[in-house]
């Protein structure tokens, strides 16, 4: 039998116990020998409620086979089915004239002008990383890269947003070291530069780290391809790596809380092979270019099942797959295993009928395999055969769209409301002690400190287009052959979101947009990763709902539509949830990469100005956490219109070439932002002489985290023009000081107290904080 021949249809198999057919179709799926019996226990082990099971029986018109149960379980898991989040996600703005592809595809796509389009998306790998940090993180990067190149875009940058427990805890260090190494090894080998990200350390993430990876790709607009199974009679081909027993039920696994039992699920660990990924990347782009295929999708979470079902669902077609034709790595794999395997570096493509050999030829050039595994059908069924026995026969519509969604009740946890209401005046009153010592201690906090230890493990310059590398406010990568650039950042302060989810999420959007503005990029669109606990808990559902509403409102104001994202729920350990962490990944466009602005002070004699207003706000600050081990108070207020004006003012100043530097004020407040601007990349820290006149207690003035502020610097002759631009945008602008000499003194006067230190003392602490903590045994644990 020729390999291009569609799998033979198992005719003549009558339906077992055929109890009324759906849509005139005769169900024929048969249980396999050795399949376990469908019991209530088995159903609940598959993460399905009895009500959901009832729906399945309704959709099939009969009891599912074991294989079918596995398929439904994966497709109706939170990860694939968005049961608890879909209604909320509808609140997000998704449209704008520049959005080419909104949510629902492998990645969002926006127009970048001149025939260029940008595909980008963020994805979580929290649970796999908790179990095996290195492989969990590595395969997370692999998955998000595939989401990009299956759109027809060449990946040009990655970002990573990470959360771990306290770095003083050896387990947190082990996870941190493994995750960073995993992200690095994978992206470095594929050859995609890292452009930025974030790392936060907080007890709330003990045992349940968050690993969110974002990727950005670039393509010509006309190369866009979708994950659709179009054209009845076209051929389904599996390309790339072979299928093994890796990660079976990863999608359901990702939708469960972590517990002692999770340890026992270890065989699910997926191992990444970045070399194969690199070949698959090149082969996929060549396939798309060749026109031999009409659709392509990663076999990611829930593997072949979700890729085949989703492709069928999007095109309104059916698919028929013969699992006996899937190239496997191990002998004796059952249909259940083949359908649910999450082996990495695999793709499902829809080849134009008759062009299967072209597909094969391209894959062969890249030393990869391609196998015909089925075809697109017109009957709307997701049908799976094992040689000539039908093992699953499910209407694709209910499978992909029939997953019940739940709008749950959300009630704020009164304890958190109490924390928010707590007065903080006792902490900000008075001179605040030795502010120099305080600042030294604060820049030594891993949350504030330089993330150089991380970034140095990532190739940030491969492809030779990285204009602004990680370490500043946002990364910038050039569009090859042009002067234009793409800027990107990820942001989220989990503490703010914990104390006030709606405002916290809005702040995440505002901070991301501000970060982009500071490099000179116009904020354009958003991808997001909703990391929350168990949504069945009303207090968690409340956080989700509020966060989504806050994100939606801010995205509307900044005109940054949400083009995609990911939901990761059940991030809990022993019943304790992580902080609500709606990570924002935002991209922006730069007109001329030669004019980008950086966060570091550039030269002695430049004037330092503050845009925005200092307020007496310590709520949710790093200062409170470090000095009082307290996460409490109102997070900083947010005035979205003022934010927008601030960002537009900064963009105008950069466009006019007025600025030497621009830097956002975030964790650690004004004082820490000044240290960061002084430190630069560490090669030549510059001193400063700053005087603050605000009538605010020094501690709050230096370490409060008021929003809507940026520190800019410029030559003395630019001060006036800068003031004019600020005034035009209605943005408060105050001259606060001057940049000093390399290695000079770092002075901030605030009323009668202040900071006065050699700048190198601060920058040494800033750069060494993480490496000092990491140079222990944990690091070689997985050498």
């Amino acid at each position: 039998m020729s390999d291009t021949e569609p799998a033979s249809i198992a005719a003549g198999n009558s339906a077992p116990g055929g109890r009324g057919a759906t849509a005139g179709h005769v169900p024929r799926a048969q249980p396999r020998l050795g399949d376990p019996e469908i019991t209530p226990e088995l159903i609940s082990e598959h993460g399905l409620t009895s009500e959901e099971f009832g729906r399945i029986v309704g959709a099939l018109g009969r009891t599912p086979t074991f294989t079918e149960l596995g398929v439904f379980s994966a497709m109706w898991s939170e990860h694939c089915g968005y049961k608890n989040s879909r209604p909320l996600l509808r609140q997000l703005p998704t449209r704008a004239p520049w959005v080419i592809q909104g949510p629902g595809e492998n990645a969002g796509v926006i127009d970048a002008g001149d025939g260029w389009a940008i595909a980008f998306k963020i994805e979580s790998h929290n649970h796999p990383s908790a179990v095996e940090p290195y492989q969990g993180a590595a395969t997370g990067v692999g998955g998000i890269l595939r989401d990009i190149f299956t759109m027809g875009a060449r990946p040009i940058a990655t970002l990573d947003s990470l959360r771990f427990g306290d770095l003083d805890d050896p387990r947190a260090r082990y996870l941190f070291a493994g995750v960073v190494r995993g992200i690095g090894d994978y992206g470095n080998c594929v050859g995609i530069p890292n452009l930025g990200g974030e790392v936060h350390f907080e007890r709330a993430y003990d045992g349940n780290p968050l690993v969110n990876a974002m990727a950005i790709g670039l393509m010509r607009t006309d190369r866009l391809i979708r994950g659709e199974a179009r054209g009845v009679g076209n051929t389904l081909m599996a390309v790339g790596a072979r299928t093994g027993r890796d990660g079976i039920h990863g999608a359901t696994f990702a939708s469960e809380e972590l517990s002692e039992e999770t340890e026992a699920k270890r065989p699910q660990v997926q191992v990444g092979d970045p070399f194969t990924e690199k070949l698959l990347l090149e082969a996929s782009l060549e396939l798309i270019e060749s026109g031999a295929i009409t659709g392509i999708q990663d076999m990611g979470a829930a593997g072949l099942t979700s890729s085949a079902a989703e492709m069928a669902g999007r095109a309104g077609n059916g698919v028929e797959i013969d699992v006996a034709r899937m190239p496997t790595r191990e002998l004796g794999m059952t249909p259940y295993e083949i359908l649910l395997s999450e082996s990495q570096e695999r793709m499902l493509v829809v080849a134009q009928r008759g062009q299967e050999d072209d597909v094969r030829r391209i894959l062969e050039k890249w030393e990869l395999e391609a196998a015909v595994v089925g075809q697109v059908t017109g009957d709307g069924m997701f049908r799976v055969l094992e040689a000539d026995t039908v093992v699953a026969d499910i209407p694709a519509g209910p499978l992909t769209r029939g997953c019940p969604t739940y709008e749950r009740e959300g009630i704020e946890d009164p304890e958190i409301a109490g924390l928010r209401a707590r007065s903080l005046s006792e902490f900000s009153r008075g001179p605040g002690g030795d502010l120099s010592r305080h600042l030294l201690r604060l820049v030594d906090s891993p949350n504030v400190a330089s993330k150089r230890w991380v970034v140095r493990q990532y190739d940030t310059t491969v492809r030779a287009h990285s204009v602004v590398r990680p370490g500043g406010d946002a990364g910038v990568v050039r569009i090859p052959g042009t002067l234009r650039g793409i800027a990107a950042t990820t942001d989220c302060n989990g503490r703010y979101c914990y104390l006030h989810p709606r405002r916290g999420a809005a702040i995440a959007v505002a901070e991301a947009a501000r970060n982009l503005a500071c490099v000179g990029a116009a904020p354009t669109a958003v991808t997001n990763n909703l990391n929350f606990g168990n949504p069945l808990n009303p207090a968690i559902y409340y956080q989700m709902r509020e966060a989504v509403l806050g994100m939606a409102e801010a995205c509307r104001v900044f005109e940054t539509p949400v083009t995609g994202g990911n939901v990761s729920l059940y991030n809990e350990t022993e019943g304790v949830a992580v902080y609500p962490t709606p990570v924002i990944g935002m991209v922006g466009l730069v007109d001329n990469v030669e004019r980008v602005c950086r966060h570091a002070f550039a030269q002695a004699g430049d004037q330092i100005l503050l845009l925005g207003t200092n307020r007496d706000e310590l709520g949710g600050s790093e200062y409170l956490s470090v000095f009082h081990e307290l996460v409490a108070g109102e997070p900083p207020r947010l005035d979205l219109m003022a934010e927008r004006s601030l960002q537009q003012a900064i963009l105008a100043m950069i466009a006019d070439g007025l600025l030497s530097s621009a830097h956002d004020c975030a964790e650690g407040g004004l004082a820490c932002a000044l240290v960061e601007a002084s430190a630069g990349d560490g090669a030549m820290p510059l001193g400063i002489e700053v005087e603050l006149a605000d009538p605010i207690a020094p501690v709050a003035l230096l370490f409060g985290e008021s929003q809507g502020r940026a520190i800019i610097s410029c030559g003395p002759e630019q001060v006036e023009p800068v003031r004019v631009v600020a005034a035009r945008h209605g943005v408060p602008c105050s001259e606060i000081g001057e940049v000093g000499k390399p290695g000079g003194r770092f002075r901030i006067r605030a009323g009668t107290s202040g900071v006065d230190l050699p700048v190198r003392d601060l920058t040494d602490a800033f750069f060494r904080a993480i490496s000092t903590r990491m140079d222990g045994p944990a690091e070689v644990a997985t050498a």
Partner: protein
Amino acid sequence: MRVVVVRFPGSNCDQDCHRAVELAGGRARYVWHRDRDLGDPDAVILPGGFSYGDYLRAGAIARFSPAMEDVVRFARNGGPVLGICNGFQIACEAGLLPGALIRNRTLRFHSFDQHLRVESADTMWTSAYESGRVLSMPVAHGEGNYEADPRTLERLEGEGRVVFRYVDLRGQASEESNPNGSARSIAGIVNEGGNVMGLMPHPDRAMETVLGSVDGQGIFQSLATHVSPVDTR
């Protein structure tokens, strides 16, 4: 100057090298490792990346690629061959250069801007620099720790074949300024004939001001001068 950039499965700096050649006024062309036909180039570049994943040893498998036979022949006939990063590793594995590159001292992948000192401006790869000049360019590797037996090291030093050394901002070589543990802070060497050079740092990523450094230009300019002394463009 007409330069062939060999692409191996897993090469990821092929485009960077291509662009670097063109920025230096040359013409670059890719040769897929299986196609082997180098044509008649003025020089060959083995680019960076992770050929075959570098799972066994960096460069170990790529060395057997069909194109490498032709590259070795080309080099033995005096043809200029430049191995950058993974290309350096491949050149060592293929015996075009002595020694080997093992895991970085820290066992970590390193990526940052590194200072280098030009140890010898007397090669066809470095004639555009002055000896002793301190350059800055990105390094990005996990296995860049250059090792060779003591006799080989002595020979390399004695014959002026250590071309680049890792140094600090002021040009001093020390333990601290040695990013990966390389013997004698060696960053780049040439073969006996001087026509094969391997280096771990990335001149291909240091060709444009907007990317932070133009210190890599000298290598490509030197090559251009060497291959067409009259028309240096």
